[in-house]
């Protein structure tokens, strides 16, 4: 059984206490991770989520946040540890999907696969996840966050050398989100420029914005 420490003057402890009470609370977990990142206490966050999912193995969103916690630590790690953290993150995203498939979980895992160099054979897995996310979002009311799937899915096809498919996805996405700078940028670039852009976007040494805040501000 997981027991949160007494909050005292420690804001992180207070957030942990709240999460122990509601482990599947995606927003509370997100806020906790944001606070962990500000404090640079990644190992504390990982330790906490490890215990949280052990105590609440069916809490899909706890697994999702646990995975994000690994992702948050990646830029602070060495190159080989980055691989281990990224793989651990995928394990948690997969567990979350196994428990409760969702748009955010498919998008998250699909996007994560795109960070792996093609040599590891995970890009096609990413495309499959992103296609699943796209299918879900097409059946839902349009939300601002949905543009991310159009962008990432096109990136996935580009990584697999299918420029035509990538452009088709980005073009369709732009029709849905005509103000998307990311889609416009990709469609305006030649292949070399796209490659350079994606090298920058999917650089493991750069921090990935894992905040889910837009989920609650996005309508």
């Amino acid at each position, binding site marked *: 059984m997981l027991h949160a420490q007494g909050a005292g003057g420690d804001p992180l402890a207070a957030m942990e206490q709240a999460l122990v009470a509601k482990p599947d609370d995606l927003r509370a977990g997100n806020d906790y991770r944001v606070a962990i990142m500000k404090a640079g206490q990644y190992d504390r966050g990982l330790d906490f989520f490890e215990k949280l999912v052990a105590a609440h193995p069916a809490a899909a969103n706890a697994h999702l946040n646990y995975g994000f916690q690994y992702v948050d630590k990646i830029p602070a*790690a*060495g*190159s*080989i*540890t980055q*691989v*281990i953290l990224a*793989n*651990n993150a995928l394990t948690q995203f997969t567990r979350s999907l196994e428990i409760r498939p969702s748009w955010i979980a498919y998008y998250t895992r699909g996007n994560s696969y795109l960070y792996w*160099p*093609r*040599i*590891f*054979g995970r890009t096609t897995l990413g495309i499959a996840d992103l296609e699943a996310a796209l299918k879900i979002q097409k059946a839902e009311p349009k939300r601002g966050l949905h543009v991310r799937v159009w962008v990432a899915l096109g990136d996935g096809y580009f990584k697999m050398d299918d420029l035509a498919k990538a452009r088709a996805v980005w073009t369709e996405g732009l029709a849905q989100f005509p103000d998307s700078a990311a889609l416009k940028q990709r469609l305006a670039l030649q292949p070399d420029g796209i490659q350079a852009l994606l090298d920058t976007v999917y*650089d*493991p*040494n750069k921090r990935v914005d894992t905040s889910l805040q837009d989920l609650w501000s996005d309508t």
Partner: protein
Amino acid sequence: MVRHVTLALVPLLAGTFVLAQGGAITFEDVTAKAGVKRQHHTRVFKGKTGDVLAMFTSGGSSAAAGDYDNDGDDDLFVTDSDEGKTNILYRNDGGFRFTDVTAAAGVGGGNDPLSIVADALWFDYDNDGWRDLLVVRFGTPLLYQNQKDGTFKDVSAASGMNSFANSIAAIAFDYDRDGRLDVLLGNYFKPENLILLKSPNVLPNDLDKAVNGGGVTLWRNLGGGRFEDTTKKAGLANAMGWTLDVGHGDFDNDGLPDVYLAGDYGTDRVYFNNGDGTFTDTTETSIGFDTRKGMNVDVGDYNNDGWLDVYVTNITDEYMKECNMLWHNNGDRTFTDVSRESATCDSLWGWAAKFGDFDNDQLLDIFAVNGLRSAGPENYIPVLVNMITSPGIDFTDVNNWPAIGNMTWSGYQKKKFFRNLDGHAFKEISAAAGVDNDKDGRGLAVADFDQDGRLEFFQANANQEPIFYRNVTATVGNWVQLDLVGTVSNRDAIGARVTLKTGSGKTLIREVEGGNGYAGQSTRRIHFGLGPDTTIESLEIRWPGGLRQRANAAVGKITTIRETESKGSK
């Protein structure tokens, strides 16, 4: 106390070369013609874990340039690593013809059943004016004394350098300025014999922050052919990493040689010399702790600001984006990595990289070799990643590492030649320069082997034939080369700083180095490219012992300068 001795200062004659800014730099492969084609062999290990150990010890292919016979040109000592295979001493006969004189010299040995040759170093440990030879091993080092007649005598036993280490790098320098050259060994594995392998837990305990490597061993030269281990006393015992290379240079311009260690699987380290036989570890403030795979240390002033900079290769490949480090010396015992801005970040799976002014334009260029293992079409990386990502895996256990078989791992990589454009930016020109071979490079020895003023390099490759590149750049700048001879200081003058002011007022510095760069020793002869300058305004030597001496040298010539024995003026 610094002493000044002033000799006559005369404007010097111009050379005949005229620099065409930005003209092509070109090299010619003369390996076969020079007669230096013999291939290196990595050690074959027996048993179930042999495959993995062979992979982890796939260094050992090194080359050391040095004039062992005092005929004025640099000869080559090239190592081999498999059991029973002999190292080779190539005598430079001029005109890019070399003769294998190993048997007569008696320096072929070292690859016995329990030892693996990994590196080599020329240095005159007894200050008799004849370069001696240190053969570095996974084992105990071998010290050969030059008998001045083309033969060498094994004096290892009497030297005291008899403690076992898995050494892979070596420099000679006079860290305590007593006039005798000391030896710093970089050790990769912890001191356990890999051939006997009593415990399988010999591999890195962390792949980014390992602290179970061999560190370094500092051997202080006591004179009389004796050395003592002063690692702990000197303050270097805290280096517990997987040292792949060691480098020296006076980084803070205080006249004392400082040290940079390149660590695989973890942080590099910087030590400043306190001047009392000890060093201070300033890693945290000088460069910060890193998690990269440091492979090489070379030292040079790439931007001609009067402060020695450091170039370190790491691993940058499809699956790992570490970037090399070009450490710009800030002049305050701190360094800033400018590899990205300067375009020297990516040399793939790096090994040796050497500074050299290959077109004599006053700017140090960089040649970098790379490539781990070129074999079959199957790639080892996905297999390895499966192991790395296995929960709870013990990386130290050699039994946990998957066999590589005939798989390729970062192989068939094109070498990188970074041409220094302006002291800030570099341009990769290896294909145009004719040096973009895809061998599994390891060591580099840079020297002007034909004494025509243009630097060339010998590239030692693992388990493959070497490549010897002759510099055939058609249009180069003027140049001057200096052979420094210490009299009070160590005879090889290793650590001497030369400051040259050109006729047009540009100031350049070089130091005599004792083996910087992974698995390779470059010439100890100082080389300055002068560009369009046809005169030298001033030339000052700061000898390792502290004496400052003004001297003359002719443009387009090799000049020998002896450390004056005069007390001179203060």
